[in-house]
């Protein structure tokens, strides 16, 4: 199967995709978007979170064919410029809050937090917890992840992301 899709606003094609492949496999192994991580293959951990046509999904649970002609946003698409130090507001907040340890869950959490703040720029703690309940982190106990989302939200001052 030939797969055509848009990733981070650029068109891509993948040839020879077989039916059993996941969107995650296509992103990582065929297109080189290594930001989405493979940690559970069951949609339990959120490490592979991407936005598909405006909906937050676990890329491991999306069959490649379902992503035909779709628009995908990955963590790589959240960086505004090309300089090595360029960071999006959520990425910067995770760094400044000390929310990164091993970092394996980080891309998924950043995509999920970005999606939350896009829809709700001033979430309560309870709303943050609910929105991020699908993203497992084994290192931080989530305390500083909560700090990071609060910090990113504070930077928005209620305005859109």
């Amino acid at each position, binding site marked *: 199967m030939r797969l055509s899709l848009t990733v981070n606003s650029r068109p891509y094609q993948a040839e020879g995709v077989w039916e059993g492949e996941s969107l995650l496999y296509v992103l990582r192994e065929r297109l080189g978007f290594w930001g989405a991580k493979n940690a559970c293959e069951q949609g339990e951990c959120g490490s592979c979170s991407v936005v598909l046509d405006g909906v937050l999904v676990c890329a491991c649970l999306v069959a490649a064919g379902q992503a035909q002609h779709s628009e995908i946003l990955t963590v790589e698409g959240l960086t505004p410029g090309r300089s090595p130090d360029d960071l999006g507001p959520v990425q910067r907040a995770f760094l400044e809050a000390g929310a990164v*340890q091993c970092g394996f869950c980080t891309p998924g959490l950043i995509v999920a937090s970005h999606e939350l703040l896009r829809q709700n720029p001033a979430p309560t703690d309870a709303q943050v917890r609910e929105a991020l309940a699908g993203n497992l982190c084994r290192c931080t106990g989530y305390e500083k992840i909560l700090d990071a989302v609060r910090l990113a939200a504070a930077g928005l001052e209620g305005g859109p992301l």
Partner: protein
Amino acid sequence: MSTVLSQPWAGERERLGLRGGVGSDAPRPDGILKVKGRFAFSSDLWAEGMIWGATARSPHPRALIAGIDVSEALRLPGVRCVLTQEDVPGRKTYGLEVADQPVLAIDEVRYQGEPIAIVAADDPETARRAAAAVYVGYNVLEPVVDPEEALRTSSDKVHPTGNIVRHLKVRRGDPDATADIVVSGEYEVRMQDQAFLGPESGLAVPAEDGGVDLYVATQWLHVDQDQVAASLGLPAGKVRLSLSGVGGAFGAREDLSLQVHLCMLALRTGRPVKMVYSREESFFGHVHRHPARLRYTHGANRDGKLVYVKAEILLDGGAYMSSSRAVVANAGTLGIGPYEVPNVSMDAYGVYTNNPPCGAMRGFGAVQACFAYESQMDRLAAALGVGPVELRARNAMAEGSVMPTGQVVEGPAPVAELLRRVHSAPLPPALGAAAAATSLPGGAANTTHGEGVARGVGYALGFKNVGFSEGFDDYSTARVSLARAGGRPIATVHTAAAEVGQGLVTVQAQIARTELGTEQVVVETADTQVGSAGSSSASRQTYVTGGAVKAACAEVREVLFERAAQLLGCLPADLVIADEAVVVREGGGFGADRAVPLVELVADGPVERTVQWRHRPTQPVDPETGQGNAHVQYCFAAHRAVVDVDVELGLVKVVEIVTAQDVGKAINPSAVLGQIHGGTAQGLGLALMEEIQVEGGRVKNASFTDYLIPTILDMPPMRVDVLELGDPFAPYGLRGVGEAPTISSTPAIVAAVRAATGRDLTRVPVRPEDIIGEVAS
């Protein structure tokens, strides 16, 4: 007592103010790559011409192998090779303490999931299918699954050497001591998984010299190198390891998993080979926390002073040795808790069974014991009619206390103070009538509006040794250089210490900044091109590799000071580093404002020094009495947990956790908090949800759907109180941080659930049925 540094290193404080130095919240050097998704974890590696490996594993916990047929697997298009134990070129077994574990099963399998054959194929799906097509004939045997049974001489032997891997005896004081109040209890800790998020993975690249380069996520590069080289039959110099991005470790990467397999496939095919375990495979691919059964009797006088503790701890090591002997040592020597007890009789056992192999996990033997001794302290407090905090305070260990091993506790041991701090923190407000359903037990499932919900508060203390004990030669190696780059000085730090997420790369850079006064520091990728750093475990790396980096910097500084002294016409002792220059210290004579920039001192080339550094030696313990100075340092923590329990449904909501910990010196305060938060979360998991369910030697829940770890909804707000009392023997006075939070959090939470429900709760994790079931008489 307040948060101050004590005296021995006070002279160093003048150097601690540098931006990004020791004591600052210096940012992680790998942070930007990690938030951008561009940090290369071991599962993100790629090489030109790369093919994929997969592993065929035993479905049986115990069986004799009648035959292996790989012909069908080899016939699949795209399959490059299929290897079995006959293809292991060198030593066919490996192990951290004893090489009892086959690289690939030899004649017999001893646990479900034991690797039997490995394959390499052009893509991961073909490799997976080929592994599934390896045909193995088995004569299935009845597995040894009950550790109590394994202990008996009548039991089937898992290994010809017998089932007991260690019996540690600790004897102190009068074995016949009597007490006014006696309480006994039997406790059980079930099998916990480290559940790191980044699965086992790596890439092996064959080299032109007949050797191999292995890129892998591990906790200890050199112990991997030694074992891989032995099994490949190659000299260590031909097996070069580099650390790739590690997605968490928590003990699970101290043993080998796919290291030898990858190298065998790469050397056989002549191609780079990558392997990534699935989550299910990961549950079979690494050791777990030892399940334990613990029997305790505590005797105390009416005034609440402990008279004796008698205990038996039985740890199920599963099919292979791994680090079981050291886990037994910790459970035994730390097994009465951070208390003064004049009379102790402790027997700690580790046994082989056909259950999944167990080894290192954060807390390493101390976790299991702490759940039992802290449960006992609550039981004793109830029997005495005193509060749990008061009883603990009366018996708390302090500086100068004597351990049951006879070892004197040196340096601050602020056990009572830690307890006082968590006790005096304000309690969270009572559950209001208008509480949102999501803040109640059951959460968004909306199972109660507050009816049937009871609140409980629980306390616990815990402690653990830092570093490797019992006479182990526990050292680290650091290579530090200072050079000129772009007109400024730049320090380079090279060690083999594994950054596993804890922030060791940050700490190494901070120490170099403080010691060499240079803001620019590069921490090179850890690899085996420099000497061993020991393991990233036992809360030891900031202490030991930190100590090595500090010592190597001191040697570099010595060279700089000698050169500067000649130029300035003064003595090296009169010099200090400030503003990236060597300057004459105030009152040093010879003109106090004279200085030489660091860059000028390295104008003719870098100054480089490599140092091997050790903490104070420890001793083995006497095999009959357990007496000996086994440990070099302890870390202490206290936890208070507040829970709401739906007593009708058996659901628990942890409302708040308060913890206090002495870290000696917070090298990076933000990272210290991260360790305490994360460690506490793993303790909450063990208290309430995490259990690898094993029946008949078979794992029932090898997935994140069925093995539950805490989510952000399960974690309560945490208040952390950090003390910095300083260990006079450690670099900067620091104490290992990583494990203490995992130890006392579990019993504190269970104590709170007991307080809310009146149940005994002698087993972790606590299940809903333990809360709502029939009350034991």
